[in-house]
């Protein structure tokens, strides 16, 4: 094809899924990375890298960049599905427990109402649904991300939480010539800085 732009930017369905294996992080994997000073440049670079089937280690940004996920080929988060099930546990626990207490364990008549007075159970059932869902999701979030008090500091560059956008390639077993080509890629995509590091 004459028009290289189509090759570079076409939403290539054959591009491999990017699997960022976070468990590998601690093993000390070498990376080469470029720092971009603008999120638009970063998205363009990621798009170009994906089109060339480069092994993207990860992308780091100071804030959630909208439009990056599809370019990077990230699947939608499934946390909210977990949230539903956590919430359902809360619903069943609260409603079931109150029913058990007031019909089986210790039935008491309050104001002439039936033992099983479902409408009165609604507020607590609702609160526990929200509580379980929120706590479950937040804990899952920190757990699957490997974040928590005491987590090791693994940031690549201090400016990534300030104003720099980082695109990092896995550099496992690449030659010096390959490294030059990555440097060339970063230069052409407008990176402000390029460097290498072992994570």
């Amino acid at each position, binding site marked *: 094809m004459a028009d290289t732009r189509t090759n570079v930017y076409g939403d290539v369905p054959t591009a491999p899924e990017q699997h960022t294996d976070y468990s590998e992080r601690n093993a000390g994997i070498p990376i080469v990375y470029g720092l971009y000073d603008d999120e638009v440049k970063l998205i363009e670079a990621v798009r170009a890298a994906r089109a*060339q*089937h480069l092994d993207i280690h990860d992308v780091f940004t100071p804030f959630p960049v909208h439009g990056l996920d599809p370019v990077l080929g990230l699947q939608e*988060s499934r946390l*909210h599905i977990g949230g539903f099930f956590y919430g359902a546990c809360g619903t069943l626990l609260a409603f079931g427990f109150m029913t058990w207490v007031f019909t089986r364990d210790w039935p008491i008549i309050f104001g002439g109402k039936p033992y099983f007075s479902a409408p009165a159970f609604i507020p607590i059932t609702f609160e526990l649904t929200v509580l379980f869902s929120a706590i479950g999701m937040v804990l899952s979030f920190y757990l699957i991300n490997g974040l928590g008090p005491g987590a090791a500091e693994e940031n690549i560059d201090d400016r990534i939480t*300030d104003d720099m956008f980082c695109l990092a390639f896995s550099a496992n077993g690449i030659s010096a010539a390959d490294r030059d080509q990555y440097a060339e890629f970063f230069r052409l995509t407008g990176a402000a800085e390029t460097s290498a590091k072992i994570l």
Partner: protein
Amino acid sequence: MSAPISALREPLILGHKTYHDITEDICAPTETTPNLAWMTAFVLSVALLGLYGFCVVVVVWFGIGTWDLNRTIGWGWDITNFVWWVGIGHAGTLISAILLLFRQKWRTGVNRAAEAMTIFAVVCAGQFPLIHMGRQWLAFFIFPYPNTRGPLWVNFNSPLLWDVFAISTYLTVSLLFWYLGLVPDFATVRDRSKGLRRKIYNILCFGWTGAAKHWQRWESMALVLAGLSTPLVLSVHTIVSFDFATSVIPGWHTTIFPPYFVAGAIFSGFAMVLTLMLIARKVLNLEQYITIAHIESMNKVILLTGSIVGVAYLTELFVAWYSGYVYEQFAFYNRALGPYYWSYLGMMACNVISPQFFWSKNLRRNITFTFFMSIFINIGMWFERFVIIGTTLARDYLPSSWSYYVPTWIEIGIFVGTIGLFFTLFLLFTRVAPVIAIAEIKSILKTAGDQYTGPNATKVPRNAITEPQLDTTELGQVGFPAQ
């Protein structure tokens, strides 16, 4: 985000800020020695906190008899203050959750501080039912745990227990939501610091890296938490209103209470956010992030909720008259013209009349006026709760048990003391955490910064870029290793 950007929208970040400027400006208060204003405020707040501690010790030692409650008036300043603080604690979650769902960008300027305020207000609110229990060391009785008394369970049909669940859930979820937002910002503070400070902030930020997948999950979480918090925030004050509405006291037993309480809570919450933010933006030099546009937006919410509250007051009066029920009619006659007429007058003046000034755009954008209004509204909303509780209980069904109630110095001390508690926590917060959500404000820079939108715009907003920008003819020639 592909929403069109209207040229009519006012910019929300002034001063042609870059991402780095935002980091610098917002992190600055956590990195400098506090100024005299902060020190003075902190000393004063801690002094009030000391008063609080002293009064609580007196109550625990001598009992609730140190208060002026009596057989007729079983709820006084304690529950008034509880409802007042819980109400104030509604604005934060409204801003962070409901306005997130409505995609209101101005929330990013005030959400962090408003959420912090929410948490501190709920902490203050929680003190009152706890102290009111009398035997505070048995407070754990309110939770349904397997005990050796049967087990004898708590009454799940009681609105007071619903309150326990609602407030504790609200505090927990607000705290989780708030901290989720703080994690990336603590990482920003960490990356600017060295030594021990860096270690501490790395613990606080949970080792945040800013990876794309983490951000994606972070946004997904924020959205779902917002979806959960929206009905939660509405449920909390609804349940607080059930404390009254499910009783058989005329003036309390009304179906209008839940929406009226929720509107009142948002009304007072926004007033407190304004009180705090108008000071904070000045003291912490954040005027370019909390702009007149933010203040105007909040004043619009105050106008709306204040009007809802006003309509609710008038509806109550009308329904009492229309019901033909003499006890109900007396309850409202008594509120307006009874022994506590002055509190009714204060409530009407502050809550019904004063917010109507905000129909004027000039007044909505006037900082001094807004500040005084926010104080008035907080006073008015306190009076509202006192009118509902004190006035109603002072005149019950049986004239022989009619009574009058004035707080003792202990009760006043506890209330003033919680204000000390609130400000102590808030002042500490401004020193250790970024007062504005750094990551979130950066994400709106290219659509709401004054270099991109408004009369001084010099650049094209980011949303306008739809086509690839990069010329990559050369890129095709870079031969990468085969994967």
